[in-house]
């Protein structure tokens, strides 16, 4: 009984879930190591970036100037705005002075003439006097109203005049502003024209410089090529064992194919001198002077790939 129980008893495996978690953790750790430990390059290392300028870098500076100019022109219109505010308060001042001064001068004249009259006519009937007084009072009232109306009219006229003056002043100011703006625009245009002229000049100069540089470079290249051709010829000449006593000045031409580095790939006789001894002597010399001197600049090698070497018997 007990033995069979033992036999069938399952092995209680400890912490198998923990083992799984640890396994996952180890992988996470490894992945983290891969991801953060190594510098995975997203983009390939940037090679040489060459900017090809059709113009010299001067045009780059000029837009900066043109940007600066409008900035200067911006604060200027602010000044005229401040100026018109000062003249405006001035015109109203004289107007109130005139209106105050004039009416009192006229009023006393009427008042003095009318008031003494009732004093002389007072002895006659009271009723008549009263009537007269009433009439006079009415008349005075009418006169006063007339005067008031006149004053109002005068005030209105003054106001109209003031408004007209203001309008005129405003118009003048506007005209001045317009003129100023026109002047500024003209100045701007002139400045722009000057800039354009400068740019054109700079471009011309740059082109001239470039042309000069290119010419210089071409000269240098041609100089370099001719120099090395002379060197090659000199080296070959130094290796030639000349066959003695050939009549005249025979000329032999060889077509030499070169490899980069100065090695000789192929030598072909393109024009014989007529003397086999001389031809073979020159051919041997060409092979002997094997690393032929080449310019260090590999770009120039194309000039030397196929060389025509002409050797004169006598120099």
């Amino acid at each position, binding site marked *: 009984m007990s033995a069979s129980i*033992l036999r069938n008893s399952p092995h209680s495996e*400890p*912490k198998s879930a923990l083992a799984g978690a640890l396994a996952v953790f180890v992988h996470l750790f490894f992945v983290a190591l891969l991801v953060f430990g190594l510098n995975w390059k997203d983009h390939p290392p940037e090679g040489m970036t060459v900017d090809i300028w059709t113009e010299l870098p001067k045009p780059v500076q000029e837009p900066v100037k043109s940007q600066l100019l409008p900035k200067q022109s911006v604060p200027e219109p602010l000044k005229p705005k401040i100026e018109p505010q000062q003249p405006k308060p001035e015109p109203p001042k004289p107007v109130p002075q005139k209106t105050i001064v004039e009416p009192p001068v006229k009023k006393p004249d009427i008042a003095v003439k009318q008031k003494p009259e009732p004093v002389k006519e007072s002895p006659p009937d009271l009723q008549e006097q009263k009537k007269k007084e009433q009439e006079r009072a009415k008349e005075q009232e009418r006169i006063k109203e007339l005067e008031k109306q006149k004053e109002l009219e005068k005030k209105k006229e003054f106001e109209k005049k003031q408004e007209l003056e203001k309008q005129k002043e405003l118009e003048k100011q506007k005209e001045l502003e317009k003129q100023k703006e026109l002047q500024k625009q003209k100045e701007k245009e002139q400045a722009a024209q000057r800039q354009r002229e400068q740019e054109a000049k700079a471009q011309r100069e740059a082109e001239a410089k470039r042309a000069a540089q290119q010419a210089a470079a071409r000269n240098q290249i041609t100089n370099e090529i001719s120099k090395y051709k002379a060197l090659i010829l000199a080296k070959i000449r130094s290796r030639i064992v000349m066959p003695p006593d050939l009549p005249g000045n025979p000329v032999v031409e060889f077509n030499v194919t070169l490899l980069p580095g100065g090695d000789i790939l192929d030598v072909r006789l393109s024009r014989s001198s007529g003397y086999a001894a001389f031809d073979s002597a020159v051919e041997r010399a060409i092979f002997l002077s094997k690393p032929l001197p080449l310019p260090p600049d590999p770009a120039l090698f194309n000039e030397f790939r196929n060389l025509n070497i002409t050797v004169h018997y006598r120099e």
Partner: protein
Amino acid sequence: MNTTVTQDMSFLHLISSASLLVQLVMLILVMISLLSWWYIFRKLFVIRYEIKKTDEFEDIFWRGADMNALYQRTINSRYESGSLERIFAAGFSEFNKHPAGSDLEAVMESTRRAMRATYQREMDYLESHLSFLATVGSVSPYIGLLGTVWGIMNSFRSLASITQATIAHVAPGIAEALIATAMGLFAAIPAVVAYNRYASRTDQLATRFESFMEELSNVLQRRAAG
């Protein structure tokens, strides 16, 4: 490996841009690696537990505890008992089944057989999955290598159509292909280390069990004779 999705786009890009076979190889390797690490930890815990239990039981047994009490304890707590306890219980129960006065040699023979049977079963349990670790250790580098060779083959084949070939054309392909080898090695190295370590540990345990079996049969024989 899914964690790479969120952690690094370039790493993900390298994996996702690999060819199908390379991706398949990577997937297999990831599964193998996960499984092998799971077994590594499982075996680690099991063997540790087994060694601890064996130490405890030997300690109790050789201190002169009552064998009947030990047997009862083992039967009662059979889910928490160690291998050595089970071997002891099997031998002791077989020994007790024989009536007193029966042939001593036959009794000892059957006792030893019972213990050996349990021993075999326990060793089988202890050594289970170790062969898997050995397989992972020897095979997964080859699987990774297959992925790498395939990836490099592809990157070189694509190179053939380019007139001006630079290293930049081949480099990403080789890099993504080499990830497969890295994965294979990552799976293999710990598996090999764990296999060797666990194999030696189980060997040690086996020796201990065998010597205990011999000693127990001696003790039982003396008890039957006495």
